[in-house]
């Protein structure tokens, strides 16, 4: 499983997952796995398990609302496992 940190972001007022090592996220791999609310070249906004989630191409996952940290961490791990692609 990919290692990441998970904490409340002071400036963004949301919980955020960040990869410990920079990796490229293939955002289009989210299609068909989650409901896509909005897609741009730099981030997707998705809905999953009742959460609104911003998935940024540089590797950050932001939960717009939510307080259940364990649930959000589990979801972050799932998203990372779907998206990660090694860049050489």
């Amino acid at each position, binding site marked *: 499983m990919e290692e990441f940190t998970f904490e409340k972001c*002071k*400036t*963004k*007022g*949301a919980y955020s997952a960040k990869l410990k090592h920079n990796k490229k996220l293939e955002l289009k791999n989210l299609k068909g796995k989650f409901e896509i*609310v*909005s897609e*741009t*070249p*730099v*981030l997707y*906004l998705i809905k999953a398990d009742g959460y*609104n989630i*911003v998935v*940024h191409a*540089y590797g950050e996952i*932001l939960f*717009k*609302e939510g307080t259940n940290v364990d649930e959000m961490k589990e979801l972050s791990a799932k998203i990372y496992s779907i998206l990660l692609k090694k860049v050489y």
Partner: protein
Amino acid sequence: MRGLLLISGGLDSPVAGWIMAKQMELYSVHFSGEPFVNKEAENKAKSLAKAVGCKKFILVPFGQIQEELTKKCNHRYYYILTKRLMLMISEKLAKKYNCDYLITGDSLGQVGSQTLSNLTNITMATKMEVLRPLLSYDKIETIELAKKIGTYELSTGPEMCSLLGPKHPATKSSIELIDIEESKIDLNGMMGAALNKIEDEDL
């Protein structure tokens, strides 16, 4: 005399508003990044607008515009293009609400869009006078003033304005290049759609 303060909810724009509130009545406009941000950013901007003495808070939905710019335009010009659009929309709001000036918290050199070259090209988006009382302030001066007037703590709360922004924004631009980028989007259509959905409330 009345000024329209473009308030992001960050550190600078409330301080700019506080300075100008000594000279004129203030209204405020906030460009909401929903659905990419939650309501906290909007609530914070409103609280700051009230704290610096704005009499009205106008909310413009801007998320779809940000999305469109990100999809269709050269991403390096994202901040320049969004700021130009904000000024264009603010000019229309200024006419609607009888405001004589636009006010922003820009200062020179702090971020990519705030170089002289870019500020010139951003300002060309409007025919109105744009007042920038923090233009020559450095960050430390702005922080000290924010602490003095009581907006610092609130300004350090939630803000997601850079969520869609590039890692390496353009520090220089030309009006010709900007025209090319703006021709890739339906400017009038997007502005019209946003203006049809504004909300306002007295503070």
